[in-house]
């Protein structure tokens, strides 16, 4: 009975959605799938919710830009809607939909609170809301009172499994402690950001980890930590590795390879997270577009193919849940491995 009711509800929602889409689709105007997919994944100056009857419903967000002459401007993104110009600033849709100043070809300084920035701060807020109360639980309870139950228990299991199985295992028992907070923060930041990116509407839905700027910042932080915490052994292995002399003396073959390795490691971190999240979003958005494209043919083709693509979307979303976790896990694990490689003493000890 319970199952019957939920199946009935699902079918009802399906019929409603399909009838709505068939109304919404403009039969004469072809759909630009590339524009739709990329548009949904791009960073924007306002938070677009939906389009209802040709009218855009969106939150305006603050724009913070600097004139080429020198003074800063703060105004609502509403003022730039529909190609409007405000104090010489306009959004150039030909050039990635960024803000430009009239009469200048290069971008002004632009610290606008964009959709992605809002999403990042929402994620930061969620992270603080999850972990600070959890930490307070331990402050309030004596350890003799036993392990926490419920939500705090789940968080404890997650934190400790990452701490012990990923960070401690990759860096080594002696050195892992100073790096654990950074790596745990990276893991949970990426995890929450990935999961929030899967939500179709506010307060999620912004494609943050599928933006190269974000993954660049994360990979760059790992790069800095790896190389600034690396000890003498690490630098010796880069510039004077234990290989036959002819491989490093007249032509510094190995040092060049090792030196490029310093940069390719974080680069691979950056690209891996970015490409995986981007691909997931792109596939889900493309399959969603199938619904709109097929309704342009006719209602029957549209309905039958839409049912198929709905199943695919459900499957992709489940897969993306998995990918959201795996990518956060891999980023953290590889960061730990790179930091561990910068502390090579304990490897030697194992060999001895």
């Amino acid at each position, binding site marked *: 009975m319970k199952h019957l009711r939920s199946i009935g509800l699902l079918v009802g929602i399906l019929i409603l959605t399909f009838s709505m889409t068939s109304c919404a689709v403009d039969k004469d105007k072809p759909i630009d799938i590339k524009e739709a997919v*990329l548009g949904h*994944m*791009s*960073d924007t100056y306002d938070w677009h919710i939906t389009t209802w009857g040709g009218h855009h419903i969106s939150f305006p967000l603050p724009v*913070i830009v600097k004139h080429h002459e020198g003074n800063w401007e703060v105004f609502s993104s509403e003022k730039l809607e529909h190609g409007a110009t405000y104090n010489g600033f306009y959004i150039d849709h030909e*050039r*990635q*939909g*960024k803000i430009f100043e009239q009469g200048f070809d290069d971008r002004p*300084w*632009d*610290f*606008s*609170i*964009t959709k*992605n*920035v809002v999403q*990042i*701060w929402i*994620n*930061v807020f969620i*992270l*603080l809301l999850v*972990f*600070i109360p*959890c*930490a307070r639980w*331990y*402050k309030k309870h004596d*350890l*003799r009172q036993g*392990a926490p139950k419920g939500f705090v228990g789940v*968080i*404890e299991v997650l*934190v*400790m499994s990452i*701490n012990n199985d990923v960070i401690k295992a990759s860096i080594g028992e002696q050195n892992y402690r100073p790096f*654990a*907070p*950074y790596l*745990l*923060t990276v893991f*949970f*930041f990426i995890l929450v950001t990935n999961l929030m990116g899967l939500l179709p509407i506010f307060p999620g839905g912004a*494609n943050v980890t*599928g*933006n*190269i*700027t*974000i993954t*660049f*910042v*994360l990979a760059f*932080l790992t790069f800095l930590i790896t190389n600034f915490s690396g000890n003498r052994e690490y630098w010796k292995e880069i510039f004077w590795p234990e290989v036959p002399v002819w491989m490093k003396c007249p032509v510094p073959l190995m040092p060049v390879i090792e030196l490029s390795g310093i940069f390719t490691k974080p680069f691979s971190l950056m690209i891996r997270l970015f490409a995986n999240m*981007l691909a997931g979003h792109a596939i889900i958005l493309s399959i969603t577009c199938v619904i709109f494209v097929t309704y342009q043919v006719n209602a029957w083709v549209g309905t039958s193919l839409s049912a198929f693509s709905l199943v695919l979307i459900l499957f992709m979303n489940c897969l993306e849940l998995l990918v959201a976790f795996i990518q956060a896990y891999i980023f953290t694990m590889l960061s730990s491995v790179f930091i561990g490689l910068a502390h090579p003493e304990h490897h030697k000890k194992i060999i001895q």
Partner: protein
Amino acid sequence: MQNMPSILTPDFGLMFWMLLAFLVVFGLLAKFGFPTIVKAVEDRKNFIDESLKNAREANERLANIKVESEQILREAHEKQAQIIKEAMATRDNIINEAKGKAQTEGQQLLEDAKKQIAAEKENALADIRSQVADLSVQIAEKVIRRQLQNDDEQELYIQRILNDVK
């Protein structure tokens, strides 16, 4: 560069905000979040390990005490048996000794009694003898008073009798 999609081109403003937000959340969680959780869990783990160790030691000690108490009990049993054995031996000794003593004492008493009896008998015999002598003298007096008129004859006779008596 500007022909590429915007997600592929780094944006300085977004980078600034991302860095700021990440450093804020990292600072707060590194100060108030993760170390507290990890430390609490590790402390609890150490506490549990120590409790288990203590419990194991207590168990071992308890087992030792059991063995010890059994040994003490066994020893006590052995001692008890030995004491009983000794007591029995002592009792037998005492009885034997008493028997011997009683025998010798009885012997002594018997001998004393015999001696006394012998002495009494001697006394009695002497008494009887003297009385017999008296009686005989008296009888003899009477007899003689009548028969012997002369002193010489009498004297002689008496002498003869005396010699016979002796």
